[in-house]
């Protein structure tokens, strides 16, 4: 089945959904393979850890599977899947705020600096720095920034997904960019 999934790039989402609803559970793997990377990246940087991202994405897919017959437009299942994931991430983020508190490295504890990042290890370190900087943003600003620049969604698409107004989203993204620039381009400490 995995090989078939990798090769069956032309199978439409609507066909897959019909197969699953007809009882072919394994067909759902097509959808997982098709959307898992984008969904996981969003969850990874929204929630701040690989483990939480794994759980959120798994949870989102399980919920999508359970509710598949309620999907209004199987031909365009992607926005529906991402809406479920967005809700899952919001629930997890609010739960964590209530009961744990997000860990954010104290100012000065990490040497924030923009640099050329050609080496794979440097690129990994750069991603981690961005990830830590993202966690300093409030949840809704982080969400708007990631949907805009990680997931390449238009403001109209983001508004449809989150239920927020376009001007509010633009303001959040602008402030998020400014804040990230402030953090990540802070000069090296002497």
């Amino acid at each position, binding site marked *: 089945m*995995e090989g078939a999934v990798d090769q069956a790039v032309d199978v439409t989402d609507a066909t897959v959904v019909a197969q*699953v*609803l007809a009882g072919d*559970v*394994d067909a*759902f*793997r097509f959808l*997982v*393979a098709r959307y*898992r*990377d984008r969904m*996981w*990246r969003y969850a*990874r*940087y929204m929630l701040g850890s*690989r483990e939480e*991202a*794994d759980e959120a*994405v*798994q*949870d989102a*897919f*399980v*919920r*999508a*599977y*359970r*509710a*598949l*017959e*309620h999907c209004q437009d199987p031909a365009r299942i992607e926005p529906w899947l991402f*809406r*479920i994931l967005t*809700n899952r991430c919001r*629930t997890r983020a609010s*739960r964590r705020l*209530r*009961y744990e508190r997000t860990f954010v490295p104290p100012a000065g504890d990490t040497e924030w600096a923009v640099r050329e*990042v050609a080496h794979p290890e440097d*690129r990994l370190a*750069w*991603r981690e720095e*961005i*990830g830590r900087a993202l966690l300093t943003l409030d949840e809704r600003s982080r969400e708007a*920034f*990631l949907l*805009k*620049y*990680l997931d*390449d969604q238009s403001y109209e698409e983001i508004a449809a997904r989150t239920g927020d107004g376009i001007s509010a989203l633009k303001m959040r*993204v*602008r402030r998020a*960019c*400014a804040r*990230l*620039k402030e953090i*990540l381009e802070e000069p090296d400490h002497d």
Partner: protein
Amino acid sequence: MTDYEQEAWGARLGAALREATPDPALDDRIMAAIRRAPGVDLSRRPGRVWRVLAFAAGIAAVFVLGRMTARPVAARGPDPGPSAANQPLVRFVVRAPGARQVSLVGDFNDWNQEATPLAQESAPGVWTVEIPLASGRHEYAFVVDGSAWLPDPAAPQVADADFGRPNSVILVSSRGL
């Protein structure tokens, strides 16, 4: 920051973040969780046959969102830690006359209907189970005879709006209130 600078900066960060990749085994874990979950047919609304009435059983250490006919009940222990031993014990009670089996599914057991079966103890048709639950918000439902998905029929629309049907929701506090 000008619009152009914002776009360039955002695009640069987005490109860096897109290099992250999930564990290749994630697909298998997702599919395993899906196979453990109730089937698609279970998402249909329960019919009249399984008109299940849940009843209250008291409340002490659990917040309940909204009015629910299945009342999670009290808990013990101080601040719950990560291990099950330190988590509040929550009792779920549901009245399901004529049922052959009832299970509890929720985000705490990956919606696995084999993980948390209820037992008839105090009276015929009254099914109960006690489980430790971490503090936080949990969504759950009952599955009767492996085929009828039963969120609390009297609960308000408290679950998220992912799909058309809500689940029941409880909030377990870290202080057991």
